[in-house]
């Protein structure tokens, strides 16, 4: 979701590199990070496994500079490509404003490409979006592979919405920046168009999760190749076997219209429903075996997850113990007075108006943006901290203690009498002796 902050004069958008495992998403980001001007790029953060496979995401902020008086920034993410990580992949897609789909050009990777594209559509659907509406571009990476498929075939299979497409060899940097530039232009254009539609009714309701996903594999081929600026010259066409494999893959997943007439967005063939079963888990066994080596244990294993789930609750108690006990207790005792978060209350029309009236300090009239002056006497921790509770008053005399006292007195009396008796006997004996 685009964030426009007029106070900071900043526009933020989120861009995600999506695609099958090992297709070159992280490599794209690394190249952008290496070659972007120092002043425009932020740190590249990777959450990856020991084997350098993306575990959650890679992230890099890219500052495009000032556009019409607004500092325009892209937050660029990659997703983990492996089938196993669909839940984290889906999280990264939340609020996405533009997608680069990085496909592996190898004929052996056709099925993985198709599955990843379907998975992208499905995950977008869960956020009420679709490839038909989200700005996206396609990058056909690894064009230097000997078994790279032709652009025509790749487009027919992987570019259902006639998005701009680019050839790339990401590890050499070829095609990386044209891809990103094209996507950035599309995203910024969509921001501008949405801005100019401001105040108009919102777009139609989002597509339900299981609604028809426009994975119609239309063929843009010739016109696309002519008009969309292929970056790198075409390589030999894919073998007929590879094409046949792709067709089989499409038919196995319930799609029977793969090579129909070209479909422009305005004249798309009827969208086809996705297969009901979760695509991500459909044939991921080899991937799982390969990628779970360094992966955290699955949720079902209980121990770590259960422990982690409780940790935030358990830790504070220990952390707070010695120094915090007083503060925490003071905080709790302050609760009924509710005096503390009052400054600025009148201006903001806070709902807790009654508490505001109970506030003792006139400092509440300060401007909400003004940091309150350091007035030791006004520091809430000190000012509102209740005085130490007085020691409990001695309990008034009650029947029970009186009874206990009487018993003691009785025992004492008996003891004294017995002692006196013994004393007298001893004295007599002594007198007799002498």
């Amino acid at each position, binding site marked *: 979701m685009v964030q426009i*902050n007029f106070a900071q004069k900043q526009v933020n958008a989120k861009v995600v590199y999506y695609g099958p495992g090992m297709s070159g998403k992280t490599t794209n980001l690394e190249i952008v990070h290496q070659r972007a001007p120092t002043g425009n790029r932020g740190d590249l953060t990777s959450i990856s496994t020991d084997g350098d496979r993306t575990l959650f995401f890679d992230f890099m902020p890219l500052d495009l500079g000032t556009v019409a008086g607004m500092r325009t920034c892209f937050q660029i993410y990659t997703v983990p490509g492996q089938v196993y990580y669909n839940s984290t992949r889906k999280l990264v897609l939340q609020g996405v404003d533009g997608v680069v789909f990085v496909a592996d050009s190898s004929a052996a990777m056709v099925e993985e490409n198709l599955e990843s594209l379907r998975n992208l559509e499905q995950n977008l659907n869960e956020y009420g979006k679709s490839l038909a509406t989200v700005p996206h571009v396609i990058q056909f990476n690894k064009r230097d592979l000997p078994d790279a498929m032709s652009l025509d075939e790749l487009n027919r299979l992987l570019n259902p919405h006639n998005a701009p497409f680019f050839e790339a060899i990401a590890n050499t940097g070829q095609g990386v*920046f044209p891809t990103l530039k094209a996507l950035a232009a599309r995203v910024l254009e969509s921001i501008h168009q949405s801005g100019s539609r401001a105040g108009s009714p919102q777009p139609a309701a989002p597509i339900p999760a299981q609604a028809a996903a426009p994975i119609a594999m239309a063929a843009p081929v010739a016109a696309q190749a002519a008009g969309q600026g292929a970056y790198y010259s075409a390589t030999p066409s894919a073998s007929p076997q590879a094409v046949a494999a792709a067709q089989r893959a499409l038919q196995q997943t319930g799609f029977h219209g793969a090579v129909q007439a070209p479909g422009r967005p305005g004249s798309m063939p009827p969208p086809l429903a996705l297969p009901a079963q979760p695509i991500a888990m459909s044939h991921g066994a080899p991937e799982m075996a390969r990628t779970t080596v360094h992966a955290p244990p699955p949720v079902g294993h209980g121990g770590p997850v259960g422990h982690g789930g409780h940790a935030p609750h358990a830790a504070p108690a220990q952390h*707070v113990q010695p120094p*915090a006990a007083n503060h925490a207790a003071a905080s709790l005792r302050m609760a009924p007075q509710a005096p*503390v978060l009052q*400054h600025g209350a009148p201006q903001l029309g806070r*709902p807790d108006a009654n508490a505001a009236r109970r506030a003792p300090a006139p400092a509440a009239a300060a401007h909400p*943006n003004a940091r309150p002056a350091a007035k030791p006497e006004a520091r*809430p921790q000190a000012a509102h901290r209740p005085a130490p509770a007085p020691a409990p008053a001695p309990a008034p005399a009650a029947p029970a203690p009186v009874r206990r006292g009487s018993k003691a007195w009785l025992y004492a009396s008996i003891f004294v009498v017995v002692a006196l008796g013994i004393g007298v006997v001893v004295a007599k004996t002594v007198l007799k002796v002498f």
Partner: protein
Amino acid sequence: MGVREQKLRTDRLVFYRTDVTKLEGELDGFLELSSARSALLIDREGHLVTKRGEVQQHSLDSISALVAGSFAATREMARLLGEEEFSTLYHQGQRDSIQVSLVGDRALFAVVFDERTNLGMVRYYATETTRRLDVVLTEVAERPEGEGEEKLASDFGSSATAALDKLF
């Protein structure tokens, strides 16, 4: 899915000066009371909305993205465990600690604090501040777009193209 949630999912989020002034007032009040080091308001996509206190500017984007990612993962974990969501997240460090609270549907309130205060204080004041921030953010989210006093310049599109040509 409610109308509001639909809107939150499909719309852009626009903050005007008055919104940010209100939000910063809340953050300032929180910092004063809790003695925390810094307070960040981040939307759930990982974009920083505003920040107050002692913050290192250069790492803010990364911190915001990681906080949002971390919270998203926690939310998914909660869902798998049968909880609706974990509304608070806490990481304890040797010197600094961070607590993240969910603010309504839309944003995250991250607090960085050190030995000058303690978790009890931070948590107590954060609870109230979160509620107040949610009031402001709800106004922002439910306000029809275009009602604010500022708009994107009409030449945003052409300027964007020029900026891209310059950068790439």
